[in-house]
């Protein structure tokens, strides 16, 4: 890289550089490093926001794994939701993007409509779906009724509550569709034409051109959405409050309850660290296994 000619001398340049990025340095200290440190310390105390904190070392962490019955349940619920949602989201978004990428009239209108749900704030979509899922007066059961099927107890039953939240989650997949669509539009036409010349069908185009070229974008979206799903909170908080019988108690909701309902700040912070490690671990596993299925141009 060539040296820039801007600036009279490097000293002044360095000074200005640091001045301009000083908000970033301050921000990283104030909003990342310091709170994380504070949280790590709190996670090793018995602080309940009222009495004085007592240092207990790793006792909170041990307690979570041995005494907290809801901890495993909430982790299980969250993982169930994540592993149900993420693959479904990827498949639906990819199908949506492939449809939008075909030569059809009114593409712009469909693109707008597909994106619309991802504009909706989670609180609003939670309230809206709460009403749609209503057993007696909800629209979904109304349709089921018309089709001759039985009404389903969506968010009111232990078995259906997580699948219901998944349906909701797949509904606002518009932003992923748009990202996939941009990726599809970046695929060079000559590669697709080459498949045509070789007598290949659409399946071959998809399997040998589109999927490999799109795989880095799929990986990116998978990780972003997985991190989002692992942090499931607003939907169960608004719609079910973790019920019925804790079957939609997500991990973040459990942390929230411990911190702000029961005032167990020490325990809650320890849980937040466990969530952090869990997220990193799953990201790492996806990354590590990804070189087997992602393809980067320029790779040999």
């Amino acid at each position, binding site marked *: 890289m060539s*040296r*820039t*000619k*801007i600036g009279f001398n490097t000293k002044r*340049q360095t000074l*200005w*550089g*640091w001045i*301009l*990025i000083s*908000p*970033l340095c301050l921000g*990283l200290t*104030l*909003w*990342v490093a*310091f*709170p994380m440190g*504070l*949280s790590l310390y*709190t996670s090793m105390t018995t602080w309940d926001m009222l009495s004085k904190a007592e240092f207990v070392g790793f006792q909170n962490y041990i307690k979570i794994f041995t005494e907290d019955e809801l901890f495993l349940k909430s982790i299980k619920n969250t993982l169930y939701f994540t592993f149900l949602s993420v693959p479904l989201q990827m498949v639906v978004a990819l*199908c949506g993007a492939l*449809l*939008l990428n075909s030569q059809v009239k009114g593409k712009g209108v*469909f*693109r707008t*409509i*597909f*994106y*619309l*749900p991802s*504009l*909706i*704030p*989670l*609180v*609003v979509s939670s*309230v*809206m779906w709460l*009403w*749609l899922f209503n057993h007696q*007066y909800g*629209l979904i059961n109304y349709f089921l009724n018309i089709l001759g099927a039985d009404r389903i107890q969506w968010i009111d039953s232990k078995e259906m509550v997580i699948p219901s939240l998944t349906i909701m989650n797949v*509904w606002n997949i*518009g932003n992923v569709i*748009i990202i996939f669509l941009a*990726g599809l539009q*970046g695929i060079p036409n000559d590669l697709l034409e080459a498949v045509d010349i070789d007598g290949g069908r659409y399946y071959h185009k998809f399997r040998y051109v589109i999927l490999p070229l799109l795989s880095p*974008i799929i990986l990116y979206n998978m990780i972003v959405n997985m*991190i989002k799903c692992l*942090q499931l*909170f607003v939907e169960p908080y*608004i719609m079910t409050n973790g019920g019925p019988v804790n079957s939609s108690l997500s991990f973040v909701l459990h*942390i929230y309850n411990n911190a*702000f309902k029961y005032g167990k700040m020490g325990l809650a912070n320890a849980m*937040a660290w466990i*969530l*952090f490690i869990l997220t*990193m671990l799953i*990201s790492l596993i996806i990354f590590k296994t990804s070189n087997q299925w992602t393809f980067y141009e320029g790779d040999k």
Partner: protein
Amino acid sequence: MRKRRTGTTVCIYTFLVLGAISCLIPLFWLVRSSFMSTEDMFKLPLILFPKKLKVQNYIDVFTMVPFAQFYANTIFVVVVNIIGALISNLMIAYGLTRIEFKGRKLMFSLSIGTLMLPAYVQLIPLFLEWNWFGKINTFLPLTVPAFFGNAFFIFMLCQFLRTIPRDFDEAAFMDGASYPLIIAKIIFPLAKPAMAVVAIFQFMFTWNDFMGPLLFLNDMEKYTLAIGIRTFISTFYTPWGVLMAAATLTILPLIVLFFIAQRYFISGLTLGGIKG
């Protein structure tokens, strides 16, 4: 051959229309319910299209809770956040891409690294910090951090600034302009499309933020819309029509903004998404 092609086209349109319907129906149901009285909503068989639109719910929204106040609070927080995001991110991105100095690559990587941190993991620590500052139940925790840059925007603006030729700044520098002047007079006008993306996404993030206001605000007079909606839901009695009206009013500005500035939404998504 020809026949199959029409078949495929019909198939594609069918799926597109089905997809579009499933995207729109929940929203239709929301708006439909917001114009109905509670008795009509709880009538079987369901009334799909109310014969008369009742606006009573929209009046009740403002009388049952200080909803206008929620609106004002949200707009205030959003505006401050946008101002903070516009200033800080452009400054930082300029410093990271156009001035060469030791440590800038490290700072760039550190900033990108924070993108990997799950946001909710940071929230309890942030709560502890603001509690320690004694600033819970003020707007400060919801506004001040915007002035310190956001990794997503920094990354996006860095990508954008790399497409602007350096000759512009160099010429200005020769004429004796300082860095702040170059940023304000040369870079900012050139970066307007990217700045629009920053403003719009900041608007969305802040408008939709739920966990932040939930943790940091206690008094109802300070609520933003996102947590204001929650006040209608109760275990004993939920006024569904009013709740739907409140939800509709919350998303209305977002939808209007989206239709005005649609291309910025799309370009923001692809800028942040593809190059990652």
